[in-house]
């Protein structure tokens, strides 16, 4: 039921990074990787910043098994993402500036050069009960088919990648994009160079 040491070590490493960068509160967020027809996912209630070997749980990609007793609350979203996309790793976290902007914008467009180069745009999806798996499993996967990051309004983001490190990278880029956008908007001054205009990100 528990992950082999090589996989646990990667979960522990990325979990600590998410915690140190304050992309989660102490017991929030979850991360997973896909391996064929099974996935490894964080145990419910475990702290991402302090994962123990027993905190990374193996479960099926589709089949329901008893691991659901202890695996992450949002296991269903992770399963749905893997079934609908080619991602092999998923990071779910609550980056404050992304979530803040999601309250006032329908999608968060990168205006900085780095963000424009990498993710360009973070689509925002919205539904009545954003915390939990059922609606997220419906709304999140279709967006991740074509974007590395999606934000669930007033809740947090899901980022996908080939590896856990890549998914983590997209999560950090998303927060950086949102922070720069937020701070720039806060000045109330006109933007002199908007990187998003170059690539017409409205159609991306």
């Amino acid at each position, binding site marked *: 039921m528990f992950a082999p040491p*090589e996989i646990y070590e990667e979960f522990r490493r990325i979990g600590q990074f998410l915690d140190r960068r304050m992309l989660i509160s102490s017991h929030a967020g979850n991360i997973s990787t896909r*391996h064929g027809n099974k996935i490894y996912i964080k145990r419910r209630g475990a702290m991402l910043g302090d994962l123990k070997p027993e905190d990374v749980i193996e479960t099926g990609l589709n089949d329901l098994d008893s691991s659901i007793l202890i695996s992450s609350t949002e296991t269903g979203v992770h399963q749905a993402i893997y079934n609908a996309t080619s991602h092999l790793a998923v990071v779910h976290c609550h980056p404050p500036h992304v979530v803040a902007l999601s309250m006032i914008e329908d999608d968060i467009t990168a205006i900085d050069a780095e963000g424009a180069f990498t993710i*360009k745009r973070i689509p925002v999806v919205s539904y009545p009960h954003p915390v939990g798996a059922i609606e997220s499993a419906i709304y999140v996967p279709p967006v991740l088919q074509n974007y590395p990051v999606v934000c669930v309004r007033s809740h947090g983001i899901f980022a996908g*990648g*080939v590896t856990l490190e890549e998914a983590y990278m997209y999560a950090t880029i998303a927060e950086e994009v949102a922070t720069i956008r937020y701070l720039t908007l806060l000045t109330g001054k006109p933007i002199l160079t908007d990187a998003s205009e170059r690539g017409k990100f409205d159609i*991306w």
Partner: protein
Amino acid sequence: MNGLHHALMRVNLNENTVTREEISEELAEQYLGGTGLGVALLCTEIPSGVDPLGPENEVIIATGPLNGTRVPTSGRFSLVTKSPLTGTIFDSNSGGFWGVWFKTCGFDALVINGKSSSPCYIAIEDQSVTIKDASECWGMDVDATTDFLISQEGKNAKVLCIGPAGENLVKIASIMNDRHRAFGRGGVGAVIGSKNLKALVVKPGKQKVIISDPESLKAFVKTAVDKIIQAPITGRSMPNFGTAGLVNVINTFGLFPINNHQAGASDLANQISGEAIRKQLLVESEACFNCPIGCGRLTKTETMNGKGPEYESVWALGAECGVFDLQQVANANYECNRLGIDTISAGVTIACAMELNQRGIADTGVNFGDGDKIIPLLRQIASREALGNELAEGSFRFASNYNSPQYAMCVKKQELPAYDPRGAQGQGLAYATSNRGGCHLRGFLVGMEILGVPKKIDRFGVAGKADILVRLQNGTRVTDSLVTCKFAEYSIGSDHLSRFLTAVTGKSYSAADLDVIGERIWNLERLFNLREGFSRTDDTLPERFMTEPFEDGPSKGVVVHLQDLLDQYYEVRGWDEMGVPTDQTLEKLSLRRLA
């Protein structure tokens, strides 16, 4: 679906006829074009057990929906056939301009079967395909053939042809394109030669395809070109050093094979590096159609000139044979191109002959470091004379004749490229499971394990490698079906490709949709190979990689844990323990009726 002409031309060389056929919407949607289209046609059209060098074998040349558009690196095209070297289904890919010009003639694919009663070539121009006499150029090398056919067809003609190696049915013969580019691997030149077909000549036509959303395409292309130009590999390394820029990097990590894979690094590697080529040989850089990378190198030595050598060639004809004299290596590369021989297979096969001599197994008269003997051997291979006649069969058949197949560095009888899997576990699995035998272009794990693209992973680790490889393999099928260049994917990913395809075709494709298409093509290739008698036992590596660790260097002490990786791989693929796709997998991919 836009982006295609929905037309293929069938050339029957038995009957000397050319007919036009429609490509159905369903076929285009499920297989896109290029390799995917070729695989779908070959699998349904040639019977099991066909002799690859017999008239029943087909050669399919195809472009895809992105070819000839403003999409960067969209100048490539694909060839699909059954290989005489491996006996597997085999697709090859080439660049330059031939494919784009072919598409402007109003066709997406050319399907050739039968055997001409006398030497011939195929001339293609706007909406027209003609079979012509090639008696005058039969026997000529690639340069002379190209010159001759341009004199016949006009200066604006592009020539795809074989040299003496293809005519003499050498199993490692290539088809050369524009003199120096190649459908290099698998002995595809011998397939063309077996049909008495010397060349295919194309002149630019006037037929355009419809682009559904040109404005969006323009915007997506802009972001892609920005990335390609700015990324270090595509923006700086390749334009400056070509693919040979890899030599010093791969050597530093200890997976640069030396002396028929008996070592993984050499202090002499820098002598044949991309830096050395730039300093000593480079005349100018060259790019394919609409390519912002420009990795091609026009070069000259003290006595010869031509293109390259590419990374794989400089290694195979150099380090793998213990040769580090750049002049000798470059000249051997030019000679391969002139004779129409695959540089990788030629070098590795000669290295095998060197090791058999070293071990006293066969008196081949050639030793590691004998750089002056390479070109004479290449000429013997092309003309099938003396030792060359044995080497013309490739390393596996050659070594097997001396009861020593373990010294043939190949998978499914095709010689391996320049990355020793003892320094990159995932690449070992990629070699073992490649549908066309030993190849780095059917899943380039070195990209992640060494170059860190898109993200670095532990090169000696096993966990998760199968999942990553399956994604990469599926991706290669998509790239070769669109048809674009794999090098662009050091900078852009399937998120860009899906948007390009959507804008061109008018049909909505996500990155996930492309993965499914790639998976379908990969599985169909697998079904073909299973039909031809391949099984799990063929998904393997030379014994050396699994039992003999390097004694020193950065990759010392490691062997490939292939069986563990293979079990993971089959599970991820949805295949049974013998490597056969399950019913569920076939159903998911709409392949059940073809199983």
